[in-house]
């Protein structure tokens, strides 16, 4: 039982990191980033390449730093190439889904070309096993369970206390009014994209310590994040985090009691049920 809860909390934490980035971008730009999973993958690859002995061999701390720096830049580049030309146009949502899908195909094949298809592993941030209340937990799992909420609380404080964070929310609420108050909408958009990329990257580095990394490692977390944001409500950060843990736990219990192969069916059923009752998710605003 406690093992199921732990595995549910770990997935929940990872989904929350991935999905909150998606939700943040949706909230302020009104577009959906299908390349989010590829940013996660790129974060893991940069961390691996900089840190691993068969890459640059600079050690994990440098690897993580390099990875997060890379993601800030990559987020900004993605924004300029794939999002900016369409933001505010009549069909932005559709066009940006296509351009970000295109961007993810591009990145996946680039990584495949540069690093090859063989699986890589990142060193775990912390090794060994810890026993909490009689349950042995892999230290990396425990770190994930603790680190993700800390980061998300940090994000929440930033969005509610910090001037720049308030500017992001102001733009999300009313772009014209925000502009009148002297907020540079453009800068807010870049910042939002970069922050969302960094959140995906952290998830990628954590995932890379738990599983092998491969060019398509971002696909599965992204699909789960879709379910999470639809479930919790797009654009609502509390809804997204609640949704992430709910989906993580439902998944863990379903795969234990009903079997791993029926879990997606259960998730889909839950998703449909929620949407029939609340078409914008638990805490979402109308699309």
């Amino acid at each position, binding site marked *: 039982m406690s093992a199921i809860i732990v595995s549910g909390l770990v997935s929940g934490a990872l989904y929350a990191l991935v999905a909150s980035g998606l939700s943040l971008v949706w909230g302020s730009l009104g577009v959906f980033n299908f390349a989010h999973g590829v940013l996660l993958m790129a974060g893991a690859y940069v961390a691996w390449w900089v840190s691993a002995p068969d890459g640059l061999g600079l050690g994990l701390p440098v690897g993580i730093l390099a990875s997060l720096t890379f993601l800030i830049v990559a987020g900004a580049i993605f924004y300029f190439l794939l999002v900016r030309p369409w933001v505010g146009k009549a*069909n932005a*949502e559709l066009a940006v889904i296509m351009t970000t899908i*295109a961007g993810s195909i591009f990145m996946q*094949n680039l990584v495949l070309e540069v690093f090859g298809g063989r699986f890589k592993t990142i060193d775990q941030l912390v090794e060994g096993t810890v026993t909490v209340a009689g349950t042995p937990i892999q230290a990396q799992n425990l770190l994930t369970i603790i680190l993700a909420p800390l980061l998300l609380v940090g994000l929440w404080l930033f969005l509610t206390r910090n001037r720049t964070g308030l500017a992001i929310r102001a733009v999300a609420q009313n772009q014209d009014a925000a502009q009148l108050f002297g907020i540079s909408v453009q800068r807010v958009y870049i910042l939002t994209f970069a922050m969302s990329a960094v959140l995906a990257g952290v998830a990628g580095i954590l995932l890379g310590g738990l599983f092998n990394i491969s060019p398509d490692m971002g696909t599965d977390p992204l699909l789960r994040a*879709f379910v999470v944001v639809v479930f919790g409500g797009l654009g609502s950060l509390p809804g997204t985090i609640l949704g992430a843990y709910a989906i993580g736990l439902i998944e863990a219990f379903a795969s234990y009691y009903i079997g791993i192969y029926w879990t997606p069916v259960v998730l889909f059923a839950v998703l449909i049920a929620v*949407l029939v009752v609340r*078409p914008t998710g638990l805490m979402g605003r109308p*699309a």
Partner: protein
Amino acid sequence: MIRDRFTAWRILGAVLVLAAALAAPQVLTSAVAQNLAILSLLYAVVASNWDLTLGYAGIFNFAHVAFFGIGSYVAAISTLQFDLPVWWDLVLAVAVVMVVGAIVSALALRLRGIYVALVTFALTQLCVALINSQKDLTGGPVGLIGVPDLQIGDFAFGSDPRSYFYAAEILLIASTIAMRWLATSNFGLSLVALRDYENYAVSRGIPARRQRVLAIVISSIPTSLAGCLYAHYLIVASPDVFSFSLTTLLLTMVLVGGAGTIYGPILAAFVLTVGTEELSSLGNFRYMIVAALIVLTLRFLPGGIWSLRRWRRPAAPAPLSVALDEKGAP
């Protein structure tokens, strides 16, 4: 919108297309060319039917990928697991897909905009999960191999690939005529009206959800038939039909060809199928080229390649105006 007028040009075009359709399987005799042509034709059916819902009705959905895949699996399962005669599986596939399409679209279309895209995307993933889980019935991740050939009397289609060529052509021509007719009928006009001015259309008595569900269900019929032919022709049904790469390829056909035109996606289906094959020596780089092509087309040619035919005239009124904005929401 003006109703179609049968000008001399249209008749000439139709005659030319029919002549080409009759001649092509006799002229393109190499195995590679025939294979590419058959795949292009089947992809063209899926892309142009997807376009009715995406371009005309403005419903951004991924359901057609699922319809195509379910079609191919119904063909494989009914012939291999239940020994149903071939041809019957086509009827069964259409029936199954119409039911799935009706249920899912009735539920999904309670939602709006991006949520429809996400739920229908989840549907395709559900199909993959079910296929992987029901190994005994579906062959799991490997798929089902040995789907029997279509047959007329004693003549098996596989003995002469030209027969699949003709079958795919007949399907594409029939589906195109149906789609064009639908798109210009009152039904099609009501879809466009709902896409562009939903509140006005609803106030004039157009039942929004019914028309949209109908659009999805009707366009699911040729899509599922294309899936059946695909399984019979390749003699396999594999989960690859739901893959991200095939999904992207088909969606690219719709958008690069020109959403809301029917003909554009068909043209793009041929260009892209042949194009990616010609570039196959480039390995992974070909996908990167296709990706760059998608972004550049959307940026500089939002009407798709079909809009090029009227390059002298002023720009067409944004055929890609898939109405996802909240202004239309009730």
